[in-house]
């Protein structure tokens, strides 16, 4: 169980999060939606200590992790992996070295062991044959797959996906969606997915929370969201340019 309790976060003059509270049950696929700049990525990055909240509490399995030091976050980052918006492969390393890096760092494997394990992970996402290519030599969709393989190497219990299907073609996006669903169903992995992709949301989400004006506007099942009477929610999910939403 992951809990965000009354999270506040300010950047300069602007208070992005103004008391966000959210509970993510174990093994669910929780989507977080909202307009650009609403603070979705800021919220999920706080779970792994990449951004620290100004106030509020974050609990992982009942244990408070809000004020852990950078070093104390190391074991949390083993449990909770993150796939970033830009795929974030390290340009100076081959695809194989990118996937092997967390194994060398978190599990202290030597180069050969880590490479063997990483090759297996790349094959899982159908990238085994391209293991020795450099990130610049493959397209966005393939880079994203490698980033997912890298995140999965440590067998995390929680996966955070920040806009996983942005800039992907529909086929590649469906692959990623299927993978997220499979992780939840077959391995019980809890996934928190930041996304604008309505097709993904309504096909694989268990729950959806919408951030609006720094707070959770709605949190419920996909059906509850689809039938919500809140005009702000309806405007967002129907993608209407005119309506009550203030951008």
């Amino acid at each position, binding site marked *: 169980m992951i809990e965000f309790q009354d999270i506040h976060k300010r950047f300069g003059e602007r208070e992005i999060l103004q008391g966000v509270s959210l509970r993510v049950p174990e093994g669910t696929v929780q989507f977080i939606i909202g307009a650009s700049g609403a603070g979705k990525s800021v919220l999920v990055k706080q779970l792994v200590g*990449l951004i620290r909240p100004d106030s509020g509490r974050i609990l992982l399995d009942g244990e408070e992790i809000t004020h852990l030091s950078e070093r104390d976050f*190391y074991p949390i980052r083993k449990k909770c992996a993150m796939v*970033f918006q830009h795929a974030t492969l*390290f340009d100076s390393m081959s695809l194989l070295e990118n996937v092997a890096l*967390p194994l060398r760092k*978190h599990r202290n494997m030597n180069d050969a062991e880590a490479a063997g394990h990483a090759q297996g992970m790349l094959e899982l996402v159908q990238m085994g044959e391209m293991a020795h290519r450099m990130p610049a030599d493959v397209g966005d969709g393939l880079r994203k797959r490698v980033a997912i393989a890298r995140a999965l190497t440590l067998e995390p219990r929680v996966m955070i996906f920040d806009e996983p299907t942005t800039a992907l073609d529909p086929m590649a996006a469906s692959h990623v969606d299927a993978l997220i669903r499979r992780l939840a169903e077959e391995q019980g992995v809890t996934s928190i997915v930041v996304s604008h992709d309505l097709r993904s949301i309504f096909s694989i989400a268990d729950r959806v929370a919408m951030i609006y004006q720094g707070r959770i506007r709605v949190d419920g099942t996909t059906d509850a969201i689809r039938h919500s009477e809140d005009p702000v929610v309806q405007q967002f999910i129907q993608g209407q340019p005119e309506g009550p939403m203030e951008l």
Partner: protein
Amino acid sequence: MNGKDSSEPMFIERLGAPLGDLVRTLREIFVLLGRTVRTVASERADRREVVRQLFDIGVESLLFIGVTLGVLGVISLYQGCTQLERVLPDFSRAGATYLATLVREFGPVICGLMVATRTGSAIAAQVGSMVVTEQVDALRMCNTDPVRYLVVPRFLAGGPMLLMLTIIGVCISFLGGMLTARIGWEVPYSTYVNLTMVHSHDVVMGVLKSLSFGYAIPIIAAHAGLSAHGGSEGVGAATTRSVVNCSFAVIVLDFVISSSVYLVVN
């Protein structure tokens, strides 16, 4: 009431804002320096990455530094000998004077400014683009300290490589001057090559300057890169900030080291 909008910053606030920024930047740079030194002292650096940086900062800058200082040697001796010819046509000290100036001032400062421009901007652009594309966050997710991975190798490579570049640059510049003096004013090589005006404190000053510039530039440039935000515009701004801050640091350190050595010697 003076009828002005109360939210408009007062004159003193406007005056203080850049000063506040400068103090904050200096504090952040010193914090980064402290973290880097602590990491160097407590953890083994990535040797492969250090070697790569030695090559990038040193070998890759060699042609740039060599040509710049060679041309500077030619121009300096041409100007110097032209003036000498008008006042007292005695060229016996031309080489000795130029060498002393090169060792304690020109060599390290010009090399420092060149490395600040070439390497400082490259470091800021590399680190800045890693920040805005979340690669630095991804490093942290892999339990890799960005300071250890990105800053330490550049810091360790910067000092020795700037010293090496300065030594080579001084030699090339001195040779360029020697050829100019010989061709333009028929100064014999044996007269030009005169080490009597280079004292031990000149050498100490030159070495101190080279090392301090070499260690300062990677820290200042990495700080600019790490504080980048936004997209490509943020990386561009970080690169500009790096070149300005590194060049300014070279000038300030030059002044501090020169005055300190003179105070000690005299």
